[in-house]
Each structure stands twice: as C-alpha cells, then as structure tokens.
C-alpha cells in the first residue's frame, strides 16, 4: 500500500503525450457519428416536418409531440408495450428459474442439459418464428397434441402465443445468470438446512432466492428491457401495420420506414428511450433497496 501511493502520484505527473488520445480517437469518432449525433438529430427532427427522405422542412415546434402524445394509438401502444414487457419479464424469469433450480447441482453429465437449456439464446428470431408458425398453425403440432383446432397466431390467442414463443427464445441467457446465482449457495448451508429438516420450498425461498437476489432482479429487468427493444419476432409473426402487438418499437419502425414519417418515428424513438431509461432507474432503485448482498 505504502509504495502504491507514490507510484500513482509519480504517474500523474508523468507526461503521457498524445498516445492515449490517439488510442481513443476511433472509439470517440464512431460514438459521436453513430450514437451522439443521431441521438441529437433524432431530437431535432421531432420539431420539423420531414420530407420522404428525412430532410427537415418547416419548423413545427411541438406540434408532432402533441399529436403523438394525445393520440389513442400512442396510449394503446404504451399499454401494450408494458403488458408485453411485463409478461415476458415475469414469464422468462419463471421458466429460467425452474430450469436453473433443477440444474443447480453440478453432477456428472450436467453440462449436457445445461447446454440444452441455454441453447435457444444462440438461435435467431427468424428460424424460431418459422418453426413457431408451423407448430401453431391450423394443422400444426400444437393442435394435434392438445386436440384443439385453433389458429393460434391470430385473433385472441395471438398475443399469448407470441409471448410464449419469445419466452422460450429468451430463456437461455436468463438460465445462465440464475444458474450462477443459485450456485453461489454453499453446500454447507444446504447441509445445515437439511439437518434442520428444511423442505425444498423452504430452502428455495429462504436460501436460494435471497442469495441469488442480485441475479433475480437483473434477469427480470433484463428481459423486460429486451422485450421493449426487440422487434424481429413481432414484425415476422404479426407484421407492423395496425398490429395488435404495436409496441413502441413497432410504431417507430412503422412510422419511419413504412410510412416515411420520420419525425413521428423519432418521437416514438425518444419515448422508447425514455421508457427504457425510467425502467433502468427503477431497476437501480429496486436493486439498492431489495437486493441482498452477501
């Protein structure tokens, strides 16, 4: 410790020359060009009426914001976004929790089923959607197994079916995070609990969940935020026009890239980033309050 302080002081005084700036130049260049500039430009465009190739025309002030914020489709979109994100957050967490809880013990051969449970995270949306459209079609496997004759990817069942497919597709990474959390529980602790005659539910709720609480909250919020940002499954399975699953990112896409109303698309983009920001803040606060650190 005593040698570390003077070393650091010496370092501060030492001239570093231009090297660190040169090393940082490419990162800063691309961040400015493809993150900061477009973000500011996105804000700017919402105050103009843009033409069909996205050039700002007449200044319209807050008129587009007002139009969007007071529209029914926006309110509907916001509600659907939270319903979709919430269901996927809770659903993915629940499924991943069961899978990781049964995989907690490190046994010979456990790598095999771990890989199987984690595998969907490597799979892209398009092939999953393709398999999903077949399984849930009128003559698909789902109807055959359960003796129903429903077209699942339509009407009332559309929302639930899409959520179900997404939960399966997203579960892999949550499984990994929760597995890490559950494996933080020491064997001795479980042995003590066994000696005291704790049953599996007591052990789960009083030992595993509290110890894995950082991962639990991380996974729930991760899935909510991923659902807010993910677009492919809805676009492929449902489409973006007047869709019952018109979440914010679908609106963003539909306005900007289908109808060429870039300024309205930008309003939706900014609302989406605000929603993501607020939910991340909530995550931060909840973690601070509730999470139990060892």
């Amino acid at each position, binding site marked *: 410790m005593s040698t570390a302080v003077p070393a650091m002081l010496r*370092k*501060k005084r030492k001239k570093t020359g231009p*090297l*660190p700036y040169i*090393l*940082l130049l490419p*990162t*800063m260049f*691309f*961040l400015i*060009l*493809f*993150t*900061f*500039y*477009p973000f500011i*430009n*996105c804000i700017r*465009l919402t105050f103009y009426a843009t033409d069909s*190739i*996205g050039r700002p025309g007449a200044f319209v002030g807050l008129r587009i914001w007002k139009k969007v914020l007071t529209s029914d489709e926006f309110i509907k979109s916001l509600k659907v976004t939270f319903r979709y994100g919430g269901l996927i957050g809770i659903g993915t967490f629940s499924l991943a929790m069961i899978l990781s809880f*049964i995989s907690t013990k490190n*046994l010979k*051969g*456990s790598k*095999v089923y771990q890989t*199987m449970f*984690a*595998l*969907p995270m*490597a*799979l*892209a*949306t398009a092939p999953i*959607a*393709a*398999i999903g*459209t*077949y399984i849930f*079609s009128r*003559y698909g*496997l789902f*109807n*055959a197994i359960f003796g129903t004759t429903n077209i699942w990817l339509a009407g009332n069942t559309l929302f639930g079916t899409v959520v179900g497919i997404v939960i399966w597709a997203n579960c892999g990474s949550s499984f*990994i*995070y929760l597995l*890490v959390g559950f494996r933080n529980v020491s064997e001795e602790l479980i042995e003590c609990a066994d000696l005291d005659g704790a049953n599996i539910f007591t052990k789960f709720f009083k030992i595993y969940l509290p110890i894995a609480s*950082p*991962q639990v909250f991380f996974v729930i919020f991760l899935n909510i935020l991923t659902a807010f940002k993910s*677009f*492919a499954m809805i676009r*492929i399975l449902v489409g973006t026009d007047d869709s019952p699953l018109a979440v914010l990112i679908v609106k963003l*896409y539909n306005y*900007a*890239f289908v109808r060429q109303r*870039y300024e309205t*698309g*930008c309003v939706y*983009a900014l609302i989406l*980033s605000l929603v993501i920001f607020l939910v991340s803040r909530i995550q931060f606060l909840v973690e601070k309050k509730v999470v139990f650190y060892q």
Partner: protein
Amino acid sequence: MSKQRKKLTHRQKERLAVGIKIFLGILFMSPIFIGLVFSFVPDDELYELPTIQTIIDNFTFYNYAKVLRTLPILSYIKTSLVMCAIVIVVQITVTSLSAYAFAFFNFRFKNLLFTLVLIAMMIPGQVVTITNFLTIRALKLLNTYLGLTIVSFTAGRSLFMFRQSYLSLPREMKEAATVDGCSELRYLFQFAIPLSLPSIASISIMIFIGEFNAYLWPLLVSREPRMYTIQIGMAQMIGSDAIPNYGSMMAVAMISLVIPIIAFIIGEDYLIAGMTRGAVKG
C-alpha cells in the same frame, strides 16, 4: 457392505436425476427437433398433421434441394459471415486499443471521455436506428458491407471487457516492463493483448451470435436480395405465400441454425464467461 450399497443407490439416484434432466432438455429443445424432422417431409404432407408412418414413407431431401436451387441461401450465409467477420475484427481492434488508454494512462479529460462512453452505453441502438439509417443513406452506404457494419465498429461493452481484462493484469508486471524500458505500445501488443485472449474469445463469440442473428439493421440496410443476410432471407419466406410451404421453410430454418448452434457449442464457455463477468454485481 451396507455402506457400499447405500453409496451405489446414491449414485444410481444421481444418474437417474441426470437422465430425467437430459430428457427435460430434449423436451425443451423439441421445437428444433420438430423443425428438423419436418424439414424432411414434403410440403404437401404438412397441410395436415402427418403420421409417423407418413413421415418415414415420405422421407426426402427434396426440400433442401429445392430451397438451395430456388433461393440464394449460400449467398445469404456468405453475407452474414462476412458481416460478422468485419465487425469482430474492427470492433476488437478499436476497443482493445481504446480500453488500453483508459486502463493504463492518466490524461486530461480522461473522466470526461469515460463518462461519454458510459452515456453512449445508455442510449439503446434501436433508438438511434432512424437517424443512423438517414446517415447511412446520405453516405450512399445502403446495400454495402460498410453500411451493415459501420454502426458496430465500436461498443461500450467490448471496451469495458478489455479494460477489465487489462486491469486484472498484475501491476508489478507493467512496472517491471517499464523499468526494463518497454514502451507503452510494445507492452500493449506483446503483453496486454496476448494475455487478454480469453476476453477476445468471449467478445468474438458474443459479437458473432449477435451479428449473425441481427435483424432490424440488416433489414434497413440490405435492400437488394444480393445483400440479404440469412435472417432477412429467412424472414422473407414467412408469411410471403398464401399457402405456406412449411417443409421448405423448415429446411431453410435448419440451414440457418446450423452455424450458430455449432458456434454456441464450441464457444459456450467463453460466451458464459463474457456474459457473467461484470454483468451482475454481487
């Protein structure tokens, strides 16, 4: 004697548990197996549920032959792979150099620049999609590899992982090297980067799976079929026909799944290391 028997039953119990869990794993992955099985069944048989006997009787590679003949699948895959390779090489080069500046130098504006990186990480890529698309179109980069990849040339996450990796190197090593007259750049290329190979592997596999499976950005940038990535090509098939050809669809899905599944199985440990390192506090 009795002790030995007890041990044996315990072991058998464990084996049984593993067996059950592997069965659950297969059940969990069943959508993929379903896709695989039905990719060998002719389209016509799939308008009603085929019996196992029908599947066996009609087993055919016809779907694969058909989609490979009628669709430029190999070109789609090539585009995807080239895109992944460009992003991996450029992003790793850019972020490994930049992270070195944050890890080993004290310079003016260091905190400011670091805060900028943190702020950039908080802006979701989806939010800047519209304006980035306008930039790419203005630069006439639609339907080019540069247009597909340039927005991913740097990433806060990779930069952080490199920084973490550099900071975990023993300080004494750096001091000894400096005393022996090793320049900063030489230390970077001869020690810091080679010792960060596990991080490079983690970052590469994460970029690969992310880029190979990317959808929104390629959908916007690749407007011509010759520049379609496999995801875009695949997605085009779904819902495009009034009467869907499920067999061909499954065949394309299976072709598109092979590469990421192999990548996942090879790189699983690195992927998990990359995901869990620093992602969760505590």
